[in-house]
């Protein structure tokens, strides 16, 4: 079956020749029309549209956006904040930066619509420290939008006012975790909060009800406000509506970013047809489908079970290449859609080296607040580093797995899973390679392989 055509909603103008990030270009292309329309509607209507759309968060967890909004504590009398999570730090993910760099007003329009719908008077864009250019572009875009009265006081003469501020992070992965992000925004160390009681929808920024949404999610909101929730829900597949941007990196002929209707393209179509297949003379070995914290998948695996199709349960029997790239299917086969960062590894990669690279990242990024992740992530790094650079033991794989098992599910935030899932899945699926690593190290490396750690 040939791969479907890309459907670019969010990335409509990305890489379009002549398209510039300034407001004139955006307005020329129909920009801010949706906002003008939206502020004439009742805020609840927009919330309903988003609920109807079935939009799921694009930051990684895939939590339904409309549900998130409906959990907001609107009766507390406290101000409600919107925090835009632009801390795109998940290795393998590079979608939000293109929105910010090339089409920032799309994001700002999405923010303003979301703010209007939820009666938010102040929004913060928390952008990762490594995006200085992105922060400048956003600052400029906000100033432009303010000058045209799309943001700031008395927006478009409606009496509704809302300010957007850009806040730069200082370079920590954990700031992408929503409560860590909130702490950082408050000027503290980004230690994620315990939930309960600190759910952002009730006790978020400055202990006020807060929505934290991903950049891409808010761009989808703008689109939903335009076409309506019903129309949006027709895109993609049930429960996996809209489009998804896949950031494909690694050992394929054409890495890059591709936007497809969710669930309409399989992994095989994406990698073999859209991305041009493996590099010459190589074979695909493994793929991480949703950012580096997602569990790795092995080519040659088959997945069987029952899945929901409409109201019925049907059997499925998939090779890895047959798996549709949507939240539910990837979860069914034991991984996740995550942030859409597809990392491809071919047969030149030794999985121990690859895991050592991932472990080094997570050990460096653990915030250090809670014990299992703080100690476990560094221990895993020390083990895998020793395997690569020192004495590898055949039992190290089992030890790594055991350490990872002591982390997942026992931490304050999802970082515990993020840092242990790679190890758990690498060893589950490539355990032989870990056992054979002491011998494999003695063999000369193939030409052209990169040092991973």
């Amino acid at each position: 079956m040939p791969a479907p055509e890309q459907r670019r909603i969010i990335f409509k103008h990305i890489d379009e020749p002549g398209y510039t990030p300034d407001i004139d270009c955006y307005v020329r292309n129909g920009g801010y029309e949706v906002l003008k329309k939206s502020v004439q509607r009742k805020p609840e209507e927009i919330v309903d549209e988003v609920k109807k759309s079935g939009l799921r968060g694009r930051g990684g967890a895939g939590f339904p956006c409309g549900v998130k909004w409906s959990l907001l504590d609107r009766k507390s009398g406290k101000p409600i904040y919107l925090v835009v999570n632009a801390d795109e730090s998940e290795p393998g993910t590079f979608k939000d930066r293109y929105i910010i760099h090339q089409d920032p007003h799309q994001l700002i329009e999405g923010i303003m619509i979301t703010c209007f719908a939820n009666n938010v008077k102040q929004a913060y864009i928390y952008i990762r420290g490594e995006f200085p250019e992105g922060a400048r572009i956003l600052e400029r875009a906000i100033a432009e939008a303010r000058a045209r009265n799309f943001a700031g006081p008395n927006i478009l003469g409606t009496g509704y006012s809302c300010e957007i501020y850009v806040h730069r992070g200082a370079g920590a992965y954990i700031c992408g975790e929503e409560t860590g992000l909130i702490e950082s925004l408050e000027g503290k160390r980004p230690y994620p909060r315990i939930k309960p009681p600190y759910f952002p929808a009730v006790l978020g920024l400055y202990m006020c009800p807060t929505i934290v949404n991903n950049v891409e999610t808010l761009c989808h909101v703008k689109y939903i406000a335009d076409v309506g929730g019903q129309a949006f829900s027709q895109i993609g597949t049930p429960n996996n509506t809209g489009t998804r941007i896949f950031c494909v990196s690694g050992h394929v002929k054409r890495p890059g970013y591709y936007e497809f209707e969710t669930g309409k393209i399989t992994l095989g179509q994406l990698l073999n047809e859209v991305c041009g297949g493996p590099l010459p003379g190589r074979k695909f070995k493994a793929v991480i489908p949703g950012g580096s914290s997602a569990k790795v998948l092995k080519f040659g695996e088959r997945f069987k079970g029952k899945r929901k199709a409409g109201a019925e349960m049907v059997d499925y029997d998939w090779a890895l290449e047959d798996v549709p790239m949507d939240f539910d299917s990837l979860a069914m086969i034991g991984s996740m859609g995550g942030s859409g960062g597809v990392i491809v590894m071919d047969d030149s990669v030794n999985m121990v080296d690859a895991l050592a690279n991932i472990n080094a990242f997570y050990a460096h990024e653990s915030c250090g607040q809670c014990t299992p992740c703080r100690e476990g992530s560094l221990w895993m790094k020390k083990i895998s580093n020793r395997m690569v650079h020192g004495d590898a033991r055949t039992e190290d794989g089992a030890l790594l797995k055991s350490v990872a098992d002591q982390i997942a599910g026992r931490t304050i935030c999802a970082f515990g899973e993020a840092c242990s899932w790679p190890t758990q899945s690498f060893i589950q699926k490539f355990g032989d390679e870990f056992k054979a690593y002491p011998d494999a190290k003695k063999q000369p490396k193939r030409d052209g392989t990169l040092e991973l750690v």
Partner: protein
Amino acid sequence: MTQPAKPDLVTVNVDGREVSVPKGTNMIEAARLAGVDVPHYCYHPKLTVVGNCRMCLVEMGLPAVDPATKQPVMDPATGKQKINWVPRPTIACATNATPGLHIRTNTPSVKDCREGVMEFLLINHPLDCPICDQAGECRLQEQSMGYGRGYSRFIEHKNVKPKRTQLGPRVTLDDERCILCSRCIRFCKEVAKDDVLGFVDRGSYSTLTCYPGKELANNYSLNTVDICPVGALTSTDFRFKMRVWFLKQTNSIDTESSVGANTVVWSREGVIYRITPRRNDEVNDTWMTDSGRLLFKEVRQENRLTAVQVDGQASSLDIAIHTAAELLKAGSVAVVGSGRSSVEEQFLTKKIADTLKASTQLVARVGQGDKILLSADRNPNVRGALVTGLINRLPEAQLSQLGAAIDAGKVKTVLAINEDLSAAGLTQAQLGKVAIVYVGTHANATSAAARVVLPTLTVFEKSGTLVNQQFRIQKFHAAIPGLAGAVNDLVVLGKLLAKVGGSSAPTDLTGVWAQLVGEVAVLAGLSFAKISDTGVVLNASDFANLVFPEGETLHYKPAAASAPVPA
């Protein structure tokens, strides 16, 4: 004695045992009430909950309710409401009791969680227990025995961190031992209101430190040592002095102010090594001042009085008592009692004064309160003097009336109980005009000028009671034997009372209390034994019109703060 309002009770289930606890109690405390220990490090009952150590992970379940009908779902097997167990382990410290909440602490998965956390905490820990001061009272050590694995799988290099940072004048930090529970940080921020500690670096390299240019120098810094669950924060004074398991613990009271913080005195073979706070939720929670911990140093101070003296010559107790009694019986006596004496001593002092028909006064000590656990009144027992009737008005800092009476020749003899009269404003000339009988612990200008010196005991060497600012009568016990040569205050005062003509003159606690309950109305029905370790609040209605100098402290609000009374 007023009863607190009854809190809402809810029934929770801990390992199959039902227990009623106040609503909102967290599950560590609820389990404690059910007799189940939930190990923890970061949780402290008097600090905010952060849930970072993950040691208290338990299995949690809630009664099943049908989402559609809101009706309880029953389990046909047991006939009880079905319990939906949460698949992930939950931290007990941040889980509050709600009706029907179930926790399990003894399942294989909970055991696995604890072993995992213990292993993680130990991999980068130096395991230097043999040279660590915390050994013997180390939660990490104890819980590794109870919940650890017993062997190590860690063959990598341990992290290296600073070993002996001086965080302040009294606290030394070993960062390698630190398990990053953040108790000390929270204490400084929330209780001491001196937010100087924090972590730098991240992940397993996180390091506790002071903010640049700051030091941990507040008067509560040693509490961080107490609450540190490991040997990371140690007292610079106590460090390497003594193994804690050799030390005897004696309940006592901090006498530096009228707060009356509850303490434990740690001693061995008649030597005190340290003082730590003792929990009393109505007085000092689990805290005390650093200054209060130093008070034991007075026991062996250079100027400690250790010899009975008459006219500058060493004498026997009986001769000295006889001499003193003769002086007192000559009439024109003024008694200067002390706000630092125990209730029992004040009672005997009053009886002496009554027998002699002498005037009585106290010396006030008023300083700046710190709004936490140091009150403005630096006498620990002014209220005891009021309760026993030794005085009937608040003391003044200067004994100017007494000075005038001496100058006028109305006073010929002064009985001074542990108070330096010259420090209280009497001139050397005035001291020269009277015969002084000095009963006290340390040498000073008054003892030097005294005809008779009767050396007595410090609070650490005797037992008794004090009445704090809340009119709470609290007990202290002798931690060490009295210094050779010093005599128990009750013996001195009792014998003196007998000699000056008192009808009944007890010389021990039991004897004094037998009279106290009969003669002091607010103590009726009490006895020394009946006073619990956390004290008993006395009826203070007789003193409602007095305006005490104390401002607000941790568990005390001044009653008459709204109506300032003209001086």
